[in-house]
């Protein structure tokens, strides 16, 4: 059997980040990517938090083909007949190195693959891996078609579906309770129109999340990210929620209805839909992260369940890059020690525990459970809008004092047993 030091399965951000680190240190690495190019099978909602990962490969993030630094954060609570938007426009978001950027994966991943090539790594696109090879309880290589190739270590960065990791016994089959469906349209708009519609300085971007009627009360929400000359407009909806809903709303119709809402329609007016894409998202949190390493392998990125939906911040790509980075470091240590067993690779998980990746996931341990609260996606967005409606209302008769108006709304919609129960749950967030 032909053999290389390291095979990376999957040319996404986790796999490429691992390969970049390995190739940069002179290790022999081969990335196998099933798409025609890195990024061809990948979908993001649209935003990468660069702050957490800027320290890894700092030379890369200066020149990465990002779309726009996010200078405006918006959250819209959508109720029936009313919606409330909270908007943060802060210099701190973009002063100095920006915190986050909108991205298009076809561009970003292709570029990162080129960087891996420049470091001497081999990226093979159009190559689907069919199986992880196991021998005596150890991952020893991969099979692609009829070819079997051996490796000291296989970086399993195959993505969320675990079509390879599960049969090899490295991780569980994805469960609908821990996964959401994300799908979106990329809608082309001229840069100037984007900047006008979201009040942006030239080159800067906005990120907008929507809760409430978007998903018809099901767990999930809508999102909108401004790219250079397009916007990504989409919906995330819990798979379990869709099935439990019972009304059998066809998923693709949610996005179409979202687009038709009076709040959204003017935002996309005049735009040309250029692409439609969908992807599954792991949302099980820390409780569903499998063991991240073993004899001859490490798991990284979505395949390892490393993503975090904290309602206002949705993260995954930064975790993928960080896990790839730490995987590379651990493998280099294993190489130096000549030990590619679980013991030799254990520093990978240790490093992730020390880093923001598992720390942030640990902090967010209660999120997945909290997300199950149905009121979060149905009653509360409406209640928030009703509260503000009351506050801003001047009726025909005498108007009650502001505080009284607000208090009435709070009492009506928030001081209820169910809400207090939710608040009790939320204390852990």
């Amino acid at each position: 059997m032909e053999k290389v030091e390291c095979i990376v399965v999957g040319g996404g951000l986790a796999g490429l980040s691992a390969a970049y680190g390995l190739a940069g240190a002179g290790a022999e690495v081969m990335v196998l990517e099933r798409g025609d190019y890195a990024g061809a099978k990948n979908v993001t909602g649209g935003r990468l938090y660069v702050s957490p990962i800027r320290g890894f490969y700092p030379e890369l993030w200066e020149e990465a083909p990002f779309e726009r630094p996010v200078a405006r954060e918006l959250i819209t609570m959508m109720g029936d007949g009313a919606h409330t938007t909270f908007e943060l426009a802060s210099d701190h978001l973009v002063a100095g190195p920006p915190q986050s950027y909108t991205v298009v994966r076809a561009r970003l991943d292709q570029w990162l693959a080129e960087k891996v090539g420049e470091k001497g790594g081999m990226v093979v696109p159009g190559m689907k891996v069919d199986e992880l090879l196991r021998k005596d309880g150890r991952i020893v290589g991969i099979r692609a078609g009829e070819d079997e190739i051996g490796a000291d270590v296989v970086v399993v960065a195959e993505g969320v579906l675990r079509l390879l990791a599960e049969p090899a016994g490295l991780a569980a089959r994805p469960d609908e309770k821990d996964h959401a469906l994300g799908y979106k349209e990329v809608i082309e708009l001229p840069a100037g129109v984007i900047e006008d519609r979201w009040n942006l300085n030239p080159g800067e971007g906005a990120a907008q999340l929507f809760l409430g009627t978007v998903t018809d009360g099901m767990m999930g929400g809508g999102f909108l990210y401004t790219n250079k000359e397009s916007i990504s407009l989409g919906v995330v909806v819990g798979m379990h929620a869709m099935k439990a809903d019972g009304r059998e709303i066809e998923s693709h119709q949610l996005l179409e209805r979202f687009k038709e809402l009076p709040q959204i329609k003017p935002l996309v007016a005049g735009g040309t839909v250029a692409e439609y894409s969908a992807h599954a998202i792991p949302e099980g949190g820390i409780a569903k992260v499998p063991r991240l390493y073993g004899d001859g392998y490490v798991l990284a990125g979505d395949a390892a369940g490393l993503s975090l939906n904290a309602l206002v911040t949705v993260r995954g790509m930064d975790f993928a890059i960080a896990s790839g980075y730490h995987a590379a470091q651990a493998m280099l240590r294993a190489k130096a020690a000549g030990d590619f067993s679980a013991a030799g690779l254990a520093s990978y998980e240790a490093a992730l525990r020390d880093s923001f990746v598992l720390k942030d996931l640990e902090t967010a341990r209660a999120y997945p459970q909290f997300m199950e609260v149905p009121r979060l996606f149905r009653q509360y967005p409406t209640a928030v809008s009703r509260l503000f409606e009351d506050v801003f209302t001047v009726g025909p008769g005498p108007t009650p004092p502001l505080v009284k108006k607000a208090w009435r709304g709070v009492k009506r919609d928030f001081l209820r047993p169910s809400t207090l129960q939710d608040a009790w749950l939320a204390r852990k967030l």
Partner: protein
Amino acid sequence: MDIVVCVKTNPDPQMVRIKDREPVIEAVPFKLGDLDKNALETAIQVRDAAGGKVVALTVAETNRKIKETIKDALAMGADEAVIVDDPAAATLDQAGVATVIAAAVKKLPACDLLLFGEGSSDNYTGQVPSRVAEKLGVPQVGYARKVEAAGDAVRCERSMDEMIETLELPLPAAVTVVSEINEPRIPSLMHIMKAGSKPTQVWSLADIGLDAGALAPKQEVLSNLAEEQDRKHIVFEGTVAEQAEAFVNALVKEGVVGR
């Protein structure tokens, strides 16, 4: 039999999209033309049957990308690759490309059979093979859907407008193939890994005795835009019977039926 397959790398035409009538090729990956792969597959099969070797020849600006795409030809089964490095390759016209190919073929130690796809995946002019054949003074057959070695000749079957022709050409000869000739193999991982160690030569124009000045294009592209269709866009509504009625009436009125 020594076979030279001329290949060209292009932005994958399936990935090119149109925005404001302009083709968008930014971020579109380059790949070997589909018909070039048919030609390569033909060459590999003829070589495997008749012996000899297959050289993949391309004219391009040498960069990492061309080296990677030409590796696809080696991974499929070509034995060697030759890249003629012309910094102005993108602006050469068909006569220019043919001049370069003919000069490169003359520099190769041997060439019995020259294979091409019937057209490139971007421009599809089909001119280069016949220009090369003329420059080299060899006979040519276009649109072959079967190619076999027959001693010191090559036998081709081709499908023309009303007839199927079987032709024999004495070697050396030039042949272009159509897509139905074969299903190009998808290189296996092992072959891709080994392709890197197959010989790839990069020749400059000077190496093949050419001067860039002699390759000035005769054709000039004035514009390249998506077509504006001037159509009526009348859609009939109503019940199926009403639709059919209105539709057929319109065709009658246009004079395309019922004359």
